[in-house]
């Protein structure tokens, strides 16, 4: 018997909650229901079917408001939670509501179209997959919204890639849909502010014996960010997905 065997025994003593089975069965049932619903709504949903032969992407952006296939699951457990602080209800309302500013809606749709097109190009490298069941699903979530600013994320799911969905962040002015940079949002000393907040968060994590991503060492100009419900910028390391809220 070696130390790893003993460690494995400890691992295997993890208590299994009584409700695990019902939660698993419930998730399976909800997924099956969602798949059936998706089939029924496929003509109207925002699903881009990529045909290998035709290499064409069919996107029905206009149906997004009415049918949101990624968020049909009503159970809180299965609802995508973004940035922890974004109420789930915010996401569908914005597009459906009279965002009186159509510029914002146009920009969101444009962003989703761009990312679907990029995903389609990426598919060209995956030659071993069956041409059926190849799909790109685009969705979005509003991270923050005020009279002047909208921060949103475009979510891309590719059926040939079982890893996490791709996320692309956008921060725009409601007046003209122009991009807001970190400098615009945090001021000229934005890089220093980001580094200070990151160091503070890492120190806190380290003090609590939390794992700290070794690669995420310092601010870089190409880092993306979004604005959370508290109105703070949150920078995102695209490689690791690590997020740091800038509280200064």
């Amino acid at each position, binding site marked *: 018997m*070696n*130390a*790893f*065997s*003993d*460690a*494995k*025994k*400890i*691992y*295997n*003593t*993890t*208590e*299994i*909650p009584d*409700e*695990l*089975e019902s*939660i*698993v069965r*419930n*998730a*399976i049932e*909800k*997924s*099956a229901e*969602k*798949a*059936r619903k998706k*089939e029924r709504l496929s003509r109207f949903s925002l699903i881009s079917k990529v045909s290998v032969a035709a290499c064409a992407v069919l996107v029905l952006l206009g149906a997004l408001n009415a049918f949101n296939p990624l968020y049909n*699951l009503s159970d809180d*457990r*299965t609802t995508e939670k973004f*940035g*922890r602080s974004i109420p789930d209800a915010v996401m569908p309302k914005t597009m459906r509501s009279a965002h009186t500013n159509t510029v914002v809606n146009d920009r969101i749709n444009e962003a989703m179209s761009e990312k679907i097109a990029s995903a389609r190009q990426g598919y060209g490298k995956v030659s071993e*997959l*069956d041409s*059926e*069941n190849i799909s790109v699903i685009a969705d979005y979530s509003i991270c923050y919204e005020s009279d002047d600013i909208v921060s949103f994320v475009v979510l891309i*799911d590719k*059926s*040939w890639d*079982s*890893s*996490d969905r791709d996320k692309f962040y956008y921060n725009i002015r409601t007046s003209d849909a122009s991009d807001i940079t970190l400098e615009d949002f945090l001021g000229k000393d934005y890089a220093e502010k980001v580094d200070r907040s990151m160091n503070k*968060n890492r120190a*806190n*994590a380290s003090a*609590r*014996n*939390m*794992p*700290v*991503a070794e690669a995420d060492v310092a601010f870089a100009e190409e880092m993306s960010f979004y604005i959370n419900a508290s109105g703070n910028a949150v920078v995102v390391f695209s490689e*690791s*997905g*690590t*997020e740091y*809220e800038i509280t200064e």
Partner: protein
Amino acid sequence: MNGNMYDKITEYILENREKFYRLAYSYAHERETALDIVQNAICKALEKYGTIRDENSINSWFYRVLVNEACSHIKKNSREVSVGDEKMPEQVYVEKAFELGEELYKKVDMLPEMLKTVIVLRFYEDMSLEEISRVTNTNLNTVKTRLYTALKKLKKFVMEVAE
């Protein structure tokens, strides 16, 4: 829906649900969060079940989704995860002979995420390096390098193992 493959996948998920929970718990250290991770992984996996053609690949495919979900959760919530009493599995009785194993268990838990994943899959889930390569979507040499690096970090415990 390809009912045959769908049924095989759901059957596989039901049969192995406890293993999935243990793996999720090893990342989350918290019961509700681990349940969330398992449930979200099932939903994501079943959403993309159509990409599976070979039932022999179900295991590594599902573990890949599960590990991604767990890692993603840890990254998103790294500032909120508690490291209190729930760090160790609940209601664990540790005999004296298990002391080394207990220390090793704790050390493994504190490894950087990528290294921890390789150790957990290799030694707790008994996966081959090739399987780990498929689960983590990295090439075999990368897996070997990570395993070596992790074992190096666990050196004094590994010396015990080598006896």
